[in-house]
């Protein structure tokens, strides 16, 4: 199979990791919402999956030492191929296959310079903002339970 190279002005590994991580955290509703908002729906063919399997989650002895196997987690993954020849991959915790298939489509659309800004504004930015808000709320609720020690004045007599 040969495909012509589409416009994938390489945005770098860090940017791709960020996109993949946010697509993994996106909910099915967030992804279908963005799909519905897409002006022209791309044709794509499934290459693999979506399929559910396991990833062995590893920890480190003592928190920072040698690795050990903590236990597995369910993971669903998918790979799709756009008509343009760009392959999109997605992996996410859980068993939501429709979500992960859409995430793979958006991973491919993100690699295409034509559609990257749409993916950024319709999914990545909102998901990032939602996670930041959830983290902020969690951090503030947790901070409210912080202990402020004060020492009682001891009377010796």
């Amino acid at each position, binding site marked *: 199979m040969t495909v012509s190279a589409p416009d994938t002005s390489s945005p770098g590994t860090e940017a791709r990791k960020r996109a993949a991580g946010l697509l993994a*955290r996106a909910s099915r509703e967030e992804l279908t919402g963005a799909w519905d908002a897409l002006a022209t729906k791309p044709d794509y063919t499934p290459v693999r999956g979506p399929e559910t399997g396991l990833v062995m989650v590893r920890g480190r002895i003592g928190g920072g030492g040698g690795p050990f196997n903590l236990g597995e987690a369910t993971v669903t993954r998918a790979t799709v191929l756009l008509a343009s020849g760009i392959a999109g991959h997605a992996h996410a915790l859980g068993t939501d296959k429709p979500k992960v298939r859409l995430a793979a489509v958006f991973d491919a659309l993100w690699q295409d310079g034509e559609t990257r800004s749409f993916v950024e504004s319709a999914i990545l930015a909102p998901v990032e903002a939602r996670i930041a808000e959830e983290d902020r709320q969690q951090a*503030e609720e947790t901070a409210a339970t912080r*202990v402020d*020690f004060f020492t009682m004045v001891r009377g010796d007599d």
Partner: protein
Amino acid sequence: MYVAVKGGEAAINAAHRLLADRRRGERSLPSVTIEQIVEQLALAVDRVMAEASLYDRALAALAVRQSRGDMIEAIFLLRAYRTTLPRFGSSEPIDTAKMHIARRISATYKDLPGGQVLGPTFDYTHRLLDPSLLTDEDVDLPSRKEPLPGASTRVSDILATEGLIEGDGELPDDQPPGDLTREPMEFPMGRDLRLQALARGDEGFLLALGYSTQRGFGRNHPFVGEIRIGEVEVELDVPELGFAVSLGRVQVTECQMVNQFKGSAKAPPQFTRGYGLVFGQSERKAMSMALVDRALRAEELGEDITAPAQDEEFVISHADNVQATGFVEHLKLPHYVDFQAELALVRKMRADIEAAQKVKAGPLRDAAE
């Protein structure tokens, strides 16, 4: 010895149907949903995930529902489901130093970077039954406060600066961690395999063993250096991308136990450590695991092995509740033929002894008469 017998089929079918009915319970009451179990019985779900060794809240909740709340049955169900799935690979080791913290306490330092945050704990509750929960009363939203800037430094790192505590527990870099779900267990085993076994071990069993070390059976002078609960990122190296991507976050509980150690022929006086890491929120389990991990390091640290918690083969072989329940509960399966054989044997032994007694007692009785 087992002999195939037929004839139970109709009874088994009816029993399954009855079980389904009893599981559902009174039909006029609404059925409990998976979402409700995940949200409102979260710690039951966490225990099932930890001991099934499979992180998936929805599936664990399904197992709790299907098992009528029998935790070991739920763990069994999830373990069985796990075997039907292919393994895509192993994650990068999670970094608990970067945890999104929901609770973090230390019993060794009062003031430490990041502070002591209690989180949603049962500690300091009065353990009085709350009648307001008999009805569905509104619950206040949590209070909020500006978080402290900066990271929550590990307590072990604070102690490490003085050189009075041992390191994290290194393994050779090129050695992949052992996996007891893939290779048969062999003793003695590495600490990596022991921690895997303990992480999926029965909470009650580890709690009892941890308690036994405190009561003097392999005492190891523990302090809770730190407990932290929160979410960590799980990253997987994906071959088609050539780098690791985040799959999402999982919640874990980590316990760093710091143990006073007077030194031995193998190690100088210093603080040694036991480590606990568990899926979900479960500090009782994480603490017990850390106590047992430390106890099982007796050999490595040159201590005498005198107590059950220090006996690796005893602890690791009996920590798994699915294995344990399988072997204990198999006793209720038909053993008709074994028992008939035993019965014949006991009858014969009894008859022999009675015959012997008669021979022995015979002349005496005759004499008495």
